């Protein structure tokens, strides 16, 4: 059959099925293959919050969404161009996200009576015309793989489990992707199990062939390669990027790494990765609770390690007393908070940006510290390095804010050349001559750092207010004021050591969008769309939240109106108001969902209608 070819700029596809159907795997393979051929990619997994919900249920649906394309792809996309649905529930749950007219491949074997009942369908949607708005392709994928592997030695149960690979093969044909990247992965994975490897390869190929030869698929979609800089790439989740970032930051500081942590969704994977890094001599403690997690990190930091602790909201709440200790001890510490829906246990698997207040103000007494935030999965790497740089250089705990969306989503990460990364210089001293524990570097105000093992520099520090320079305990009123001032000044001074904020679009005008952290992709998409629609709007995105970049005030004053989209009730907006006495318009979404580009677009369009 003669197939048509259609060229696209980008596409959004989603694999959906039961938790056991391997959707996360094929999603990952699809994105890696897409990256490897030079597309930009952005993904988001959508797990059920139950560990293993009963098979076929609505709440047991697991999905993986990928947007890939020729240009910069900032989000996993909104409406879906291709849905692969392995059973009735996965169709039902995901249909609302599918574009009208889009292609939906369903595994018809997943639409038997039981599956329909569990999906709470009264009638079979494949038969009642309810899907007439879409191009639905029902295929008995279970049957197809059975047929393909009928002469294989592997168990029928396993055969059925290759359905996902068959579907993957089909999508590879549909979007004109090569098989070899996946084949290589299969070889790495199943190298030792020849049957399994062969079966998977066959099924992958069969899926591709099926799509290629079947009458059903009339069009093949092609997407040109992006203009990616030469180099090595990989798709990486935010959590993985933090883990690698910690190792590399410690390496750049020429310090050993220690992580003290306690598992909590959605931050736990950082601990998982780190716990596997023994070959890099990374030490860690899975502590008995968050308090011990941060305290053990403080202990390791005291011992001269590059120390970190990772957590999410409830864990951050538990750590604040110890973070205050790190502030007064003036010891470096990287605290990674992967924000999730609050308050309390809240929506543990869902993203939110509602810990900014906590990061900024959530300690008793005067205990300022720097705050940075990552904008994308791969940016988590850069911001981990930045957090580490500030912590070590200024002898201070630093909070890095990411969120559940960045943590689990991926985008391609250009693997850096280590030499290009900033060097990090701890203030270690070894000379007893004139040493005092609270003597400072006059430039950074960082105190000198003598670690145990350094002869002649034995000294005591602690959580009581300490005398300037000597570090002795004192209640002297003037000294307390001085130390409070110094600690504040030290953090404020960092303003001279961080990049200026950048405005995209005009440098002044009517409307500026100001974002921070993980909403970057959505706002950027919206911004690009608005600009290409000829709308006059500018965009500035913050990665340094305390202190703010030096030029931020100037930027804000150059616009009549400022729109601040946030996944909270207005934390940045509040801080901008108090810092600069500048008003802004909030776009506040607290739904346990990432921000959507169209929400920003709509809001901007609405605002532009009413010219100030």
């Amino acid at each position, binding site marked *: 059959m003669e197939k048509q070819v259609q060229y696209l700029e980008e596409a959004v596809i989603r694999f959906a099925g039961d938790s056991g159907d391997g959707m996360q795997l094929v999603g*990952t393979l699809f994105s*890696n293959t897409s990256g*490897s051929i*030079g597309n930009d990619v952005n993904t988001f997994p959508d797990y059920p919050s139950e560990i293993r919900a009963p098979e076929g249920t609505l709440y047991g649906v697991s999905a993986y969404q990928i947007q890939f394309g020729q240009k910069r792809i900032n989000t996993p996309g909104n409406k879906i161009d291709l849905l692969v649905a392995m059973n009735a529930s996965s169709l039902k749950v995901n249909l609302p996200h599918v574009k009208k007219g889009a292609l939906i491949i369903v595994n018809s074997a997943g639409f038997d009576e039981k599956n329909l009942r569990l999906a709470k369908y009264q009638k079979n949607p494949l038969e009642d015309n309810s899907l007439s708005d879409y191009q639905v392709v029902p295929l008995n994928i279970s049957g197809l793989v059975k047929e393909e592997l009928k002469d294989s030695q592997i168990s029928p149960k396993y055969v059925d489990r290759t359905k996902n690979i068959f579907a993957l093969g089909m999508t590879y044909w549909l979007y004109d992707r090569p098989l070899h*990247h996946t084949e*290589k*992965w299969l070889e790495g994975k199943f190298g030792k199990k020849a049957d399994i490897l062969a079966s998977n390869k066959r099924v992958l190929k069969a899926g591709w062939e099926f799509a290629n030869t079947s009458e059903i698929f009339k069009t093949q979609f092609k997407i040109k390669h992006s203009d*990616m*800089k*030469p180099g*090595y*790439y*990989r*798709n990486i989740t935010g959590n993985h990027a933090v883990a*690698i970032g910690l*190792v*590399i930051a410690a*390496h750049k500081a*020429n*310090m*050993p790494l220690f992580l*003290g942590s306690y598992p909590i969704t959605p931050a736990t994977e950082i601990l998982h990765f780190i716990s596997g890094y*023994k*070959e*890099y*001599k990374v*030490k860690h*403690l899975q*502590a*008995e609770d968050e*308090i*011990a997690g941060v*305290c*053990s*990190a*403080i*202990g*390791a930091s*005291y*011992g*001269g390690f590059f*120390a970190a602790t990772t957590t999410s909201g409830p864990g951050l709440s538990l750590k604040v*007393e*110890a973070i205050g*200790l790190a502030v007064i*001890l003036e010891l470096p510490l990287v605290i990674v908070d992967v924000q999730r829906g609050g308050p309390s246990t809240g929506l543990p698997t869902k993203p939110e940006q509602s810990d900014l207040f906590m990061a900024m103000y959530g300690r008793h007494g005067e205990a300022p510290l720097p705050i940075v935030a990552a904008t994308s999965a791969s940016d988590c790497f850069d911001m981990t390095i930045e957090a580490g740089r500030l912590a070590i250089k200024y002898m201070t705990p630093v909070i890095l804010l990411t969120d559940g969306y960045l943590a689990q989503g991926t985008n391609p990460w250009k*693997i850096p050349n280590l030499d290009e990364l900033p060097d990090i210089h701890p203030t*270690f001293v070894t000379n007893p001559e004139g040493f005092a524990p609270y003597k400072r570097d006059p430039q950074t105000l960082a105190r000198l750092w003598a670690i*145990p*093992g*350094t*002869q*002649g*520099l*034995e*000294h*005591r*520090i*602690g*959580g009581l207010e300490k005398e300037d320079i000597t570090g002795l305990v004192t209640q002297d009123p003037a000294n307390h004021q001085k130390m409070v001032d110094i600690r504040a000044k030290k953090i404020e001074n960092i303003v001279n050591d961080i990049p200026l904020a950048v405005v995209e679009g005009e440098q002044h005008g009517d409307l500026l969008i100001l974002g921070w952290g993980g909403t970057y992709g959505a706002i950027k998409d919206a911004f690009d769309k608005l600009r290409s629609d000829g709308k006059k709007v500018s965009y500035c995105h913050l990665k340094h939240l305390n202190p703010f970049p030096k030029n931020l005030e100037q930027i804000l004053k150059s616009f009549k109106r400022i729109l601040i989209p946030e996944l909270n009730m207005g934390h940045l907006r509040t801080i901008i108001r108090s810092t600069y006495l500048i008003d802004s318009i909030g776009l506040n979404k607290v739904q346990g969902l990432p921000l959507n580009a169209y929400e920003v677009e709509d809001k901007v369009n609405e605002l532009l209608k009413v010219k100030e």
Partner: protein
Amino acid sequence: MSTVVDEITHRQHVGTVDYTPKDFKAPIDVRWCAGCGGYSILAQVQRIMPGLGIPKEKIVFISGIGCSSRFPYYMDVYGVHSLHGRAIAIASGLKIARPELSLWIATGDGDCMSIGGNHFIHACRRNVNLNVIMFNNGVYSLTKGQYSPTSQQGQITKSSPLGVLDDPFNPASLALGSGASLVARGYDGDPKNLQYLFERAAQHNGFSFVEVYANCVIYNDGAFDLFTRKETRNEHSILLEHGKPLIFGDNKDKGIKLDGFKPTIVSIADGKYSVNDLLVHDEQDSTLAFILANMTYNPEMPRPMGVFQAIERKTYEQKVEDQIAYYSGKPGAGKLENLLIDEDSWEIK
């Protein structure tokens, strides 16, 4: 690549390691009340330090908050006066990071067993090689006299004007139940035994818990008099010594015999029983340790002092070192390229 920390860790001590107790005195005034049990503990620690042969720069004292937790300020080594209850958690991180350091914790009954209870039991379990000296004065002193988890029922304190209702912890039992490898008890007024216990803690390669009855002259004066004053201590306490029969009494005429697994007091003066009938202490027997610890609040039994248990078990930090040595020693291990570029990566040319 070796890190800055490696370099400091492996640096040789310049000069000989040859101290007197005075070398461990920090140049500031000790600010405990006159008569506080803390003075003796401090003195004994300073006395045994030279004998350990550890360079001062390798010694760290970490404490929480409390009168007792002021301890690090008085020791001229490295020290951290940290947060109420968190000394063990902080020290665990430091010890895992820097196993070559000699780590000591000064803590109180409140600091260690009340707010710090969770870190305590987990460090016991993990067997991190920390030397914990718990000043048990049966009260929160720094905050001016509330009851603690080792206060006795009925005790009148500022926060129990009508008498304490709580049953106290038996610190030795708690430590044993949590898996501590060395568990011991002493009291402020017995310098020799304290020195011995601190030395044992220092030598023990694993978690050491030394409970010290420390008199608080202000808020719980005399709480341990029965076991510590000359007039009564011989009849009301008993010193546990490894391999030796359990004998006590003013005239060394009483002993502990096991009746099944119940300890009972027998006279070895009246000829019915001899030393050979008595229970012989064995530090390596954890059941025996529990039986002896269980005597603690039994008013009929003498209060045991000394080492309840001392068992060698691999330390947590050693296991970390071993795992690191194993995996980092594999051929090709530790290459950062492999961390950065993996099987899922691709190259764009």
